[in-house]
């Protein structure tokens, strides 16, 4: 690196943006060039002064004012305005009236589809026969444990249970 290249680099980039190789070459050159040594030292000095400069002091402390505003916002805001605090705690969103019946319908449909698979081939499920012992003739026991059907039914039921639990939690929080 020569004097011109070093001056250009100092002018072009802050020290933190220099590549390790550039820094190494600049320092090697500065060891043998008094003018460039001075240039590097001055540039480092004012960049460092800028980084360590004390910040102006606000006329009054801000923390009490900010915290007062936050508490006021949390205690007096309408439900719509408390969305920030709610989001902040990652609480579940309150459900609207149509969601629960819709989820129940989805669960019934899912279970119905599963039972439908059991009844395939004209077999009518007879609970009396089941209770009296032995599987009725023509009943495909294997279909009852069809993995896909079991997964669908279990998933829908679990989802419904979780949503109901979340709904109860939201209702409790909403109460004063």
């Amino acid at each position, binding site marked *: 690196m020569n004097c011109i290249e070093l001056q250009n680099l100092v002018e072009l980039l802050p020290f933190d943006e220099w590549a390790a190789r550039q820094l190494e070459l600049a320092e090697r050159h500065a060891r043998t060039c008094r003018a460039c040594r001075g240039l590097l030292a001055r540039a480092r000095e*004012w960049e460092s002064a*800028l*980084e360590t400069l004390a910040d*102006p002091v606000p006329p009054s402390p801000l923390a009490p004012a900010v915290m007062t505003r936050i508490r006021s916002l949390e205690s007096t805001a309408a439900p719509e305005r408390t969305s920030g605090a709610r989001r902040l705690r990652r609480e579940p969103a309150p459900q609207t009236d149509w969601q629960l019946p819709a989820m129940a319908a989805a669960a019934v449909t899912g279970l119905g589809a599963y039972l439908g698979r059991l009844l395939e081939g004209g077999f009518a499920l007879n609970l009396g026969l089941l209770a009296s012992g032995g599987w009725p003739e023509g009943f495909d026991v294997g279909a009852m444990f069809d993995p896909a059907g079991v997964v669908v039914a279990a998933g829908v039921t679990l989802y419904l249970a979780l949503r109901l639990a979340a709904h109860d939690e939201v209702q409790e929080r909403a109460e004063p």
Partner: protein
Amino acid sequence: MVRAIRRGHSDAYAQIVERYQRRLFGLVLMMVKDAGGAEDVVQEAFLRAYTHLDRFDEQRDFYPWLATIAVRLAQNWMSRRSRVRAREGGTETEEADAGGTEDLVAELVDDERGRQLWRLVGALPQGERMAVLLYYRHDMQISDIANALGVTGGTVKTLLFRGRRKLRTMITDGEAESASGQEERA
């Protein structure tokens, strides 16, 4: 700390305000050039950060996110002030904006060397001033600065380059004046 606040310990947020208030106030003051306005903007920035904490990505540093909110609010504040001044028949030029730091920092910065450097930074045009401050004083990367100012990374590099060059010139001129003054007195 952010995790604790998210879990509902809102009082922990006071520590964040304590930690960053001076830093943020210095930044906003250099933008709006009005101590009262800077206080309002900084308060609002802390409040916005709190109410939108769910949007903060914990994998990243908190301060650049907070500073970005403050910069945007300060830009809005300046736009409102410009509109008010325009309605009142006044104008706000870049030169007028770059001046007026003298009185501000005189009361708010403790040491003379610091006051001098703040004045020099305050004398830079707005874009260059912000790029220099965010880079050197707020440890923000070029990409973070670009995001905060709403410009490209290339523009930030140009602003930083120009700002640094002017600052270096002003510092060198100041040192030369100071040296010649000492010689005259001698």
